[in-house]
């Protein structure tokens, strides 16, 4: 024999052989132990065995098997062991207690055989028969791994997704399917998961990537669930390639940004247009006013009448331009509330007085009913006036001669109130109510021709209401009339009180 038995036992036994003190400190560590656990002999000697090779969560089991060996002299079992790099192996372990001359336990001799590949085959057989058919029928790629992180089942969707041949993934570490930069961390996450297995998605909020056999990466979404079997807990991962979804998301984001830019450009355009339009209009209105007042010289009746027409048209146009500018400002978030304390009944009277001529011309009766409890409110007076003005103007416009328009105000809860403007005019069709507050959406062209206006009024009214933190609603029955309800806080945030 060319080598001594001692030499063969140290270097050539096919099992890892470890001798420890009764407390578990390593005295002997053979070459196979170096290979199976990854610790060199010099590293291992003198260290507590548990700290090196027992996975987290296995302490009780480890102690239990040692105790049994001490009590019974010997104990054989199958368990999971940890390697120096954190990966897990499946081992068949035998602990044998050695006693001293007085019969007291002195040492423990341990043989450990790495049976990871056998365990994979056993687990694979178990899940193949139970789950293969089921998992082939799902659209997702499914990978099952056992506690040592070895793949025990990959459905054909998974093989196709990662570019492997039938059966090629069996027994491989799941880390094979990850880009190398994530592998180290993954081993740690995996043992963490094994300690507390539950159904969840992997790496919530993180970008996850899969690695194909050919070396290319792709974004994935993974959900994990534990599968408890007689052979231990397996982890099932359902993997979805999100390349297409990511691309669509990106495209949508870009489109969205583009739309926002276009919308801002539109707002800027409208704002500067309104300003530019107003400047010459001021000239038109100013000179017409000056002339019609007869300052430069006397006018005959017809001249006065025509100048009055120019003035009315000019003022109407100015009003529309102002509405448009207001709307753009409010919608672009550039409008601030100028909050002050004022009397709501007074404001309502003021608006009514302004519209009296129109109401009288059409012989429309306007009634006002303000709850006595309501008096002072703290809001942007000018804008509340605009809201009421717009609603009242609309009500008068869409009510036939001799009709009735009612204005009401009543408290809602402790800190809100509701303004209502109702009429017995033409009303609104149910299908049209949704479009009512959209700018430039006047209902049917016929209406626009008959009643005039730009279709800006209600869009602006809603924007002004929203700006105050309020809500505008409408109730209407076609042919019978409409009721607009504006709910506003008694005091809006902003400057002032």
């Amino acid at each position: 024999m060319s080598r001594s038995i001692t030499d063969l036992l140290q270097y050539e036994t096919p099992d890892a052989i470890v001798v420890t003190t009764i407390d578990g400190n390593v005295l002997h560590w053979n070459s196979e132990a170096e290979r199976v656990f990854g610790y060199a002999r010099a590293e291992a000697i003198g260290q507590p065995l548990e700290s090196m090779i027992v996975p987290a969560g296995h302490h009780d089991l480890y102690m239990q098997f040692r105790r049994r060996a001490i009590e019974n002299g010997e104990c054989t079992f199958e368990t999971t062991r940890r390697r120096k790099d954190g990966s897990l192996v499946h081992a068949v372990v035998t602990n044998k207690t050695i006693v001293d001359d007085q019969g007291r336990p002195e040492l423990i001799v341990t043989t450990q055989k790495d049976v990871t590949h056998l365990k994979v085959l056993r687990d694979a057989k178990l899940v193949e028969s139970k789950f293969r058919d089921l998992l082939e029928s799902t659209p997702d790629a499914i990978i099952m791994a056992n506690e040592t992180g070895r793949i025990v089942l990959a459905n054909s969707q998974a093989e196709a997704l990662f570019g492997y041949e039938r059966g090629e993934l069996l027994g491989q570490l799941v880390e094979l399917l990850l880009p190398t930069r994530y592998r180290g961390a993954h081993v740690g996450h995996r043992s963490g998961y094994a300690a507390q297995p539950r159904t969840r998605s992997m790496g919530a909020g993180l970008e996850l990537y899969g690695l194909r056999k050919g070396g290319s990466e792709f974004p994935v979404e993974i959900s994990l669930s534990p599968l408890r079997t007689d052979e231990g807990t397996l982890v099932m991962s359902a993997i979805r390639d999100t390349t297409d979804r990511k691309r669509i998301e990106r495209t949508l984001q870009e489109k969205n940004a583009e739309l926002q830019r276009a919308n801002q450009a539109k707002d800027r355009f409208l704002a500067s247009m309104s300003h530019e339009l107003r400047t010459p209009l001021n000239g038109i209105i100013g000179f017409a006013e000056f002339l019609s007042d007869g300052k430069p010289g006397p006018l005959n009746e017809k001249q006065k009448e025509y100048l009055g027409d120019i003035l009315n048209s000019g003022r109407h146009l100015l009003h529309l331009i102002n509405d448009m500018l207001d709307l753009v400002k409010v919608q672009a978030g550039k409008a601030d509330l100028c909050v002050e304390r004022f009397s709501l009944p007074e404001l309502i009277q003021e608006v009514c007085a302004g519209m009296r001529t129109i109401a009288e011309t059409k012989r429309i009766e306007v009634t006002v009913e303000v709850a006595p409890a309501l008096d002072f409110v703290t809001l942007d007076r000018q804008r509340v006036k605009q809201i009421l003005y717009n609603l009242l103007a609309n009500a008068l416009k869409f009510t036939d001669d001799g009709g009735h328009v009612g204005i009401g105000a009543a408290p809602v809860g402790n800190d809100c109130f509701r303004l209502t403007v109702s009429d017995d005019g033409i009303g609104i069709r149910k299908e049209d109510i949704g479009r009512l507050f959209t700018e430039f959406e006047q209902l049917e062209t016929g209406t626009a021709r008959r009643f005039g206006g730009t279709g800006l009024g209600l869009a602006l009214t809603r924007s002004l209401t929203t700006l105050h933190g309020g809500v505008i609603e409408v109730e209407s029955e076609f042919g019978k009339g409409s009721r607009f309800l504006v709910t506003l806080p008694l005091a809006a945030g902003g400057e002032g009180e």
Partner: protein
Amino acid sequence: MSEGTILVVDDNTTNLKLVSDILGFEGYRILQAGDAESAQEIIRGTLPDLILMDIALPGMDGLTLTRRLKGEEETRHIVIVALTAFAMKGDDAKARQAGCDGYITKPIDTRTLPGAVAGYLRDRA
């Protein structure tokens, strides 16, 4: 007939004419400038009693010119009234800070302008 010399500074020729004519009909002597630089030129020749000053001007703006005029001994007494666009928030405060004695918002109300101007001139006297 009202007395006094008024300088109207506005880069919009229509507005310049409108304001000038309205006040001209009241009897004031009217001087006109389309920008701050020519306004300075005019003031060097004739000291007006009141200036109606458009804020947004090409080149030097109306507030800068106001600060200069209010900083000089010979021109400090001139009443300067800013013409601000449609009650832009904060413009009135800016005009006051620059030294304007008052402001009138555009669009000009042809019916109230003469009264307002007369008021500013009376306040100075």
